[in-house]
């Protein structure tokens, strides 16, 4: 119907594959995959962390991502006249504000009332939050696309194989993601709060019995997870138009990444995000029609073989 390119994808694909392997396109595609993976990782790891500790799948996670993006853009536009460099702290402030205020409210007011209740209720209460936040976002920021690219414009472009990339996307985003990965590792493995979170995750009652306030741990964990989602949004805001519904896709995508990795697996999430990011970029080069399918196909394939995810572990019920 259009262009006749869709007739026989198979021979077409092999020739394209050869082109990809033999050329610089491989590097280019990898770079594109990297920046995408960085954002996806930030959001997914927040989701994974929340599930790992609270055992709640946070459907509102994508909304936190969107709120992070919108607030970051608003603040950026606000501070740009003062000094464009202030936009960077603005991104951080926006994520913290959303993480602490929205995340804190969701956990305290809603989730804390349904712990121990049926899984479907926990899931649905975050679904309700998703609907509400989606609506609030429209009420607060309206429906016109918002764009605040100041942070990205401040940095020079870099040229790789004659193709120009913004250093924001190929340097800043991956660096932040790596920092987040190692920061999170350090936090969980080396700090008291991290130990406390791990203890509550493994055994809430035994942890309480040594004086740990599990409620507080849940709150803090949710805030960290929410902040990571908002940070993902804030970092995405300079690169994309903010439009209603931007969080809806992100939710499923981050589900796919987190579930493929195994829920609660931090390093696994990083590897999976990278794999899905790369796969997506390659597919855009090879067979762009299948771009949307990639994460879900990977997820289905992985879960069918390893239901607990690539890096997860199973448990046997005691009888």
């Amino acid at each position, binding site marked *: 119907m259009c262009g006749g390119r869709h007739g026989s994808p198979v021979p077409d694909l092999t020739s394209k594959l050869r082109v990809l392997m033999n050329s610089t396109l491989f590097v280019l595609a990898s770079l594109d995959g990297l920046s995408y993976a960085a954002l996806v990782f930030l959001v997914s790891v927040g989701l994974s962390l929340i599930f790992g500790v609270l055992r709640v*799948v946070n459907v509102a996670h994508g909304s936190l991502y969107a709120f992070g993006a919108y607030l970051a853009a608003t603040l950026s536009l606000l501070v740009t006249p003062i000094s464009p460099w202030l936009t960077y702290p603005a991104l951080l402030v926006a994520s913290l504000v959303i993480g602490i205020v929205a995340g804190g409210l969701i956990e305290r007011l809603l989730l804390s009332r349904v712990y121990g209740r049926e*899984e479907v209720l926990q*899931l649905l209460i975050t679904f309700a939050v998703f*609907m509400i936040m989606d609506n609030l976002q*429209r009420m607060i920021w309206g429906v016109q696309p918002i764009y605040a690219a100041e942070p990205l414009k401040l940095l020079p472009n870099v040229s790789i194989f004659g193709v120009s990339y913004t250093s924001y996307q190929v340097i800043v985003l991956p660096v932040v993601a790596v920092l987040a990965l190692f920061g999170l590792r350090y936090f969980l493995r080396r700090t008291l709060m991290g130990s406390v979170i791990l203890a509550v995750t493994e055994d809430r009652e035994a942890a309480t019995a040594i004086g740990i306030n599990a409620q507080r741990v849940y709150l803090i964990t949710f805030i960290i997870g929410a902040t990571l989602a908002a940070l993902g949004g804030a970092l995405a805001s300079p690169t994309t138009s903010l439009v209603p519904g931007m969080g809806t896709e992100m939710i499923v995508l981050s589900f*796919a990444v987190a579930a493929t990795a195994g829920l609660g697996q931090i390093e696994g999430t990083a590897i999976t995000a990278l794999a899905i990011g790369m796969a997506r970029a390659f597919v855009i080069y090879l067979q762009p029609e299948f771009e949307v399918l990639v994460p879900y196909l990977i*997820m289905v394939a992985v879960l069918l073989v390893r239901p607990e995810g690539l890096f997860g572990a199973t448990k046997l019920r005691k009888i």
Partner: protein
Amino acid sequence: MAGRSPALAWTLAAVVVAAGVIPILIPSMATLVVLILAKGIVVLGIIILLQAGQVSFGHAMFFAAGAYTAGFWGKYLGVGDLVAYLVVGTVVATILGLLVGLFVVRYREIFFGMLNLAFSMVLWSLLEKMFHLTNGADGMRVPRPTVFGMVFSPENFQYVLLYLTLAIAIAATFAVQRFLESPTGNMLRAIKSNETRLEYLGVSARRILLIGYVVSAALGGIGGVLVAVAQQIATPEFAYWTKSGEFVFIAILGGVGNAMGAFAGSAVFELVRFYASAQLANSWQLILGVVLIAIILFAPDGLIGLWKRQRAARDES
């Protein structure tokens, strides 16, 4: 299951009468009532799975399978018959349910939900991407079918569709109620409380769940056909995860303990959305979200539970 109490039977009768009569007084309600009933039929399927403690966040795929059966029929075979749509749509959804079910019944809880989600998103991507076959995001037109070979005018058709849907809804409700009371239905509930013991009775929990899954997929297909015919269109949105979320939402809203909950929830959901999107253009999601939270926090058994509780309180005083 409380399907036998006289009060509920009377309510059922009242609802049936209401669903049948209101649209005659207010013609524009006819399609809305069809949508309410059709979605209620889908939600019956969700309720079946919830008996086993499993929540599918991808059930919209069966809904879409039914809807697209009608869509493909219209595009490739021309105007068909509603009965044929229903039969074929149900068969397609059932087969899809069996195929997907063979995989997903090995999983429980969040993994069950996730895998369903993934499968439905694959279907959604395909419907959206296979533009040449499916017309992409704009969806496929479903021309008004004949019914038992008879051609109806638009005005009459909406009533034919309404009463047919009502009949199917009643039949489905009784069938589901029956199913849940059957040994298999009870085993389904047993999966929720103690799957290990079920295995120790020599029963394959996976097989039981698969039966429930296929039944619920079939119901999804029926609902999909009806909605597509009522709206004269099938779009990829039908398979999107938010649609699955809606079905689960409706199930919890109505209350999962009883098949009637599906229709109570569906009615409230659609009416709120319908009137809110008409009167308060921009806040229907907000309103639905708040209603849902209120139900979860204060009326965990849903609308039906709320109603029962109120009755009990009144009977005591």
